[in-house]
């Protein structure tokens, strides 16, 4: 069913990304982040002062940078003014040729010196600025990343990955750009503007006035075009975002598109979006494109008028020829920084808006600090007791109600229930991914709130539902469970998880590099690696959350032996969809709507003929 353009735009508009400052050539470009809110910085002052903290370390270097900018700008202006002298002096008829030549040698030598100082200082300050910006950005990234490590799991539930990523990519990049390029060029622009203006005043008051008259016209005209082009630009970005979103979705889902013969509809919807973008992009490109020629040629007009009026002044003896030549070149220098500055204001604003978002992340509440009297729990045994635990992710909705259970070392406790019954939540409470609101959880009799969070988590090995691996070798991924494990121990763990045989079949065995999403492994193989990673840890408590859901049942049977060894002497919590996986648990808890509705061993529960029996024999009943 073909959707209308409006519907498409609405549905895909969330893919729109705000503008990203243009990188200098050679720089990285085209990286993608998630969607993010755009706009102007709200609290500019505070943001700037926090940014300043990052470069405050280089206070003296910064002062030096500004001094160097002053010097290099002064050199440029001074050199320009000297040229006036050159032309004036060499046309003077009252001096001899030799005198004039000597003068030329002197002044050009001086000019050369000034040029060298100017170029030298501008090179020096760019170099310093790169040092400052790179170090500041490095620190900013490190701080942001460190902050990320302290954020509660909840934060990542409510903020999509792309969103968080774009803090690191777009936002930090824009700040980087601002610090190392915009800041210096804006400052030197201002210096030059003022310097040129003074020189112009000195050279000729009346001509200066003519030029000044053009300034408001410049700013007005420039502002007008900038506003128009800004409007079209954001329309273009929205259209681009929508079409990119559409492409991403339909190309990623291309197989489904084919299976449903949906190609024609996709093409038609794509054409709608594409033609809409064609229009908007044209406006944006056009208005963006005329900014340069109009501003540039306005300054040419002012240049023409200045030249003409200057000529008249010369003719009538108010100005010398050299003065006119110099003034004309000053006039050009004057319009340049104005054009440049107006462009950079937007870069600065978007960088500050980015900085604000970065700092917002830094200000997010981290996981609550450990209790003052929290203990390390050196030799944890694994007696886990839930006493009347009630929990909800938010105030309104309770996910778990009055959960009580007692698990002893060596026991295997299984949770069974339909999707959304709260099975995963139970296990996420033990290691304090989320904090409970009512009731208590104790381990070896100690309230988990009284155990240092790191110590607590060290003692609980988890195999999670989503099989996440890290870019690196197979060896490194398994060793993630215990960093000081030897190679032999890693291989031992892999054997326990029945992963050894497929690892050996990989191109480089244990040294095969796997990509982060483990794309080069099957889902089942990734699960086996996850199990091996948990197996290598010596934690007394083990949580298996759908750990073998993608492993076929024959392979699962093969691991059973290793798993039994793994679970021996540990307290194990198992969540499984497949009932065959949990059958041999010491206790099976059936969860429904956040409550334990049945508990007991497999046999006992079958005996009860309750929900578990229904689940287990569901297929039989419908025979």
């Amino acid at each position, binding site marked *: 069913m073909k959707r209308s353009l409006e519907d498409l735009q609405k549905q895909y508009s969330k893919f729109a990304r705000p503008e990203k400052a243009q990188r200098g050539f050679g720089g990285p470009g085209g990286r993608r982040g998630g969607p993010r809110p755009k706009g102007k910085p709200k609290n500019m002052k505070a943001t700037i002062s926090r940014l300043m903290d990052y470069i405050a370390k280089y206070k003296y270097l910064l002062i030096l940078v500004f001094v160097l900018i002053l010097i290099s700008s002064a050199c440029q202006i001074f050199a320009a003014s000297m040229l006036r002298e050159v032309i004036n002096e060499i046309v003077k008829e009252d001096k001899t040729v030799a005198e004039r030549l000597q003068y030329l040698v002197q002044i050009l030598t001086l000019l050369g010196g000034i040029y060298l100082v100017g170029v030298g200082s501008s090179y020096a300050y760019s170099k310093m600025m790169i040092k400052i910006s790179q170090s500041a950005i490095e620190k900013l990234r490190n701080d942001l990343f460190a902050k990320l490590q302290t954020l509660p799991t909840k934060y990542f539930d409510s903020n999509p990955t792309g969103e968080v990523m774009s803090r690191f990519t777009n936002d930090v990049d824009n700040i980087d750009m601002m610090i190392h390029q915009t800041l210096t060029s804006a400052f030197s622009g201002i210096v030059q503007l003022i310097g040129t203006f003074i020189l112009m005043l000195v050279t000729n008051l009346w001509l200066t006035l003519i030029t000044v008259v053009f300034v408001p016209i410049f700013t007005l005209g420039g502002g007008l075009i900038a506003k128009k082009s800004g409007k079209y630009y954001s329309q273009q970005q929205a259209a681009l975002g929508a079409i990119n979103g559409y492409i991403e979705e339909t190309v990623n889902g*291309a197989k489904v598109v084919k299976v449903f013969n949906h190609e024609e509809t996709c093409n038609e919807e*794509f054409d709608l979006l594409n033609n809409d973008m064609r229009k908007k992009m044209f406006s944006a490109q056009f208005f963006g494109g005329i900014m340069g020629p109009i501003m540039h040629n306005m300054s040419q007009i002012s240049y023409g008028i200045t030249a*003409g009026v200057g000529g*008249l002044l010369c003719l009538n003896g108010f100005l010398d020829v050299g003065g006119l030549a110099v003034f004309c070149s000053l006039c050009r220098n004057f319009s340049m920084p104005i054009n440049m500055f107006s462009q950079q204001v937007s870069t600065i604003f978007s960088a500050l808006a980015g900085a604000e978002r970065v700092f917002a992340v830094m200000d997010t509440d981290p996981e609550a600090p450990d209790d003052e009297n929290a203990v390390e729990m050196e030799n944890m045994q694994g007696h886990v007791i839930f006493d009347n635990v009630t929990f909800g992710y938010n105030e309104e909705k309770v996910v778990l109600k009055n959960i009580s259970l007692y698990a002893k070392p060596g026991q295997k406790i299984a949770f069974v229930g339909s999707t959304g019954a709260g099975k995963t939540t139970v296990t996420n409470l033990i290691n304090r991914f989320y904090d409970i609101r009512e009731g208590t959880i104790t381990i070896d009799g100690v309230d988990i709130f009284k155990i240092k969070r790191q110590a607590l*988590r*060290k003692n609980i090995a988890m195999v999670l539902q989503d099989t*996440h691996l890290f870019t690196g070798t197979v060896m490194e991924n398994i060793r993630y469970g215990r960093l000081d494990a030897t190679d032999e121990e890693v291989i031992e763990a892999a054997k326990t998880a029945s992963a050894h045989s497929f690892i050996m079949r990989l191109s480089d065995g244990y040294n095969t590099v796997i990509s982060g999403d483990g794309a080069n492994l099957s889902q089942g193989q990734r699960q086996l690696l996850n199990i091996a990673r948990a197996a290598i840890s010596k934690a007394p408590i083990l949580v298996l959350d759908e750990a073998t859901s993608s492993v076929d049942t024959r392979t699962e049977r093969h691991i059973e032996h290793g798993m039994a060894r793994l679970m021996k002497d540990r307290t194990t919590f198992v969540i499984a969809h497949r009932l*065959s996986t949990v059958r041999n648990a010491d206790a099976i808890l059936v969860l429904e709507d956040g409550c334990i509705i049945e508990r007991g061993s497999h046999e006992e529960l079958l005996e009860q003929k309750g929900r578990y029996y229904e689940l287990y024999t569901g297929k039989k009943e419908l025979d």
Partner: protein
Amino acid sequence: MKKWYKYIKPYLPAFILGPLCMIVEVIGEVVLPKLLGSIIDYGVSGKDAPEIVKFLYSIFGTGNGFIVAVMTGMILTAVLMMIGGVGGAWFGAKASVNFASDLRADVYKKVQQFSFANIDRFSTGSLVTRLTNDVTQMQNFINMLLRMALRSPGMLIGALIMAIVLNPTLTLILAVIMPLMIFVIFLVLRKSLPLFSSMQGKIDTLNSTIQENITNVRVVKSFVRQDFEQKKFSRDNGNLKNAGYEAMNLMIILSPAVTLFMNITTIAVYWFGGNMVIDGTMSPGDLTAFITYITQILSSLMMVTMLFMNMSRAMASAKRIGQVLDEKIDISDEFASDKDAKIEQGAIEFKNVSFRYYKTSQEKVLDSVSFTVEPETTLGIIGSTGCGKTTLVSLLPRLYDADEGKVLIDGKDVRDYSLKNLRDGVAVVLQKNVLFSGTIEDNLRWGNENATEEEIIKAAQFAQADKFVSSFPEKYQTQLDQGGTNVSGGQKQRLCIARALLKKPKILILDDSTSAVDTATEAQIRLAFETELKHSTKIIIAQRISSVMNADKIVVMDNGAVTGIGTHAELLENNKEYQEIYYSQMEKEAK
């Protein structure tokens, strides 16, 4: 080149007029200094006037009149230049935007024609990049090219000619400076490009570290690896800083170097030109104009270098897009012998079918598979992961074509049906299923555009999806996020099944598509198949034996080959593998 001309042709006037407009600007740019020079020379200094100036004198008078006339000329020139510039922007935008839009549409349509094998060859991620980044890259380049291609080189040549006309001897300075400057620019760029790409590599590494840490946050936390990750990040971050430092340190030489060359040129021109002025062989006005030309020449030179840089990048994009456009579609119904045929019965036969994903690979994914399925029956397929189950059923709707042997539906080779009719008759619920942005209803309608509301609800009921959909506040109008992330895995699978049911297919294939649905619900879905899809042929691929044990016929597969065919009871009797799977799932106590 012919490939690209197709996109230029409809907008040829814009492609030609754009650069022409820019030439107006170039001419103006070159004329303006000359006009300024004439104010100084003939308006103020009263030098020996050439014929043209004398002609102007005769109209406007000498002195004031002449100056005002030239001034007006300068203003008019500037206005003309502005018009030229705006025109250039207009045509440039017109040409580049339309070029890119047409190209994007063509690439997209080409991708829509791709077979699964074509898609696999490129990977979806790279296709997306080609459609988005690469096309935009080319658009930007064309826009720049149209506006700069004639401008910078034109300016370079124009200013050079003017400079030579003005003073050929002084122009010799350029003969020394220009090659030197080009040499330095190229040297810096050549050295810095690899540095920048190494920096890009470091950025990618850092980004993937961040990405992994965000998605794996629970793993990091549960293994208490914050410090470890922080260290790793700091190291990568430090590497990036150093790489960036190195690359930029080289890059910042460029601007001072160019300035220095300009400065040297200025001094040289002033020295030699100054001498000439003193000798009286050159006028002061000419000297001023000459300096302006020299500046224009050198900055155009810089621009031309940039243009080349950008060109190499756009060329890379063009190449990547070209690969998509040139890709040979390996599945089409061009040679189908009976395009009007539709699937009526749903009888299936595999005849000695073999298949490899890559024609060069040794290992066969399917090895001489043969069996038949009667219409209106249910076939179960079971076997360990990677044994070729999915591949086997993919051959039915021609998602892939068999290398050897034949796949027949209703006694006719699948290659003889039109793709549309074939796929209309065969519905597949894929293992890796996808829902799209839009409402739930929009998504279900993929199965049948013209379905009534009742039909949609009915299909959802059969797929056991109606209950949870109705529990949403907006029911069937609930918006799904990209990839359907706001419904659970099991819910998603049920919606996908409902979508396929709406097609009312003669053949329905479920590829492990109830794995996230609990057993009770799954049983109900299967029950619905028996009633609602009574007249369809059903193929169920599953891990769970309970999913297939009621099928009329079960195919057991291992390593691409069929190792057993029969009913549950028969296989339990005589197929070792089936027994193994069975006993791995139900122990004796399960009766």
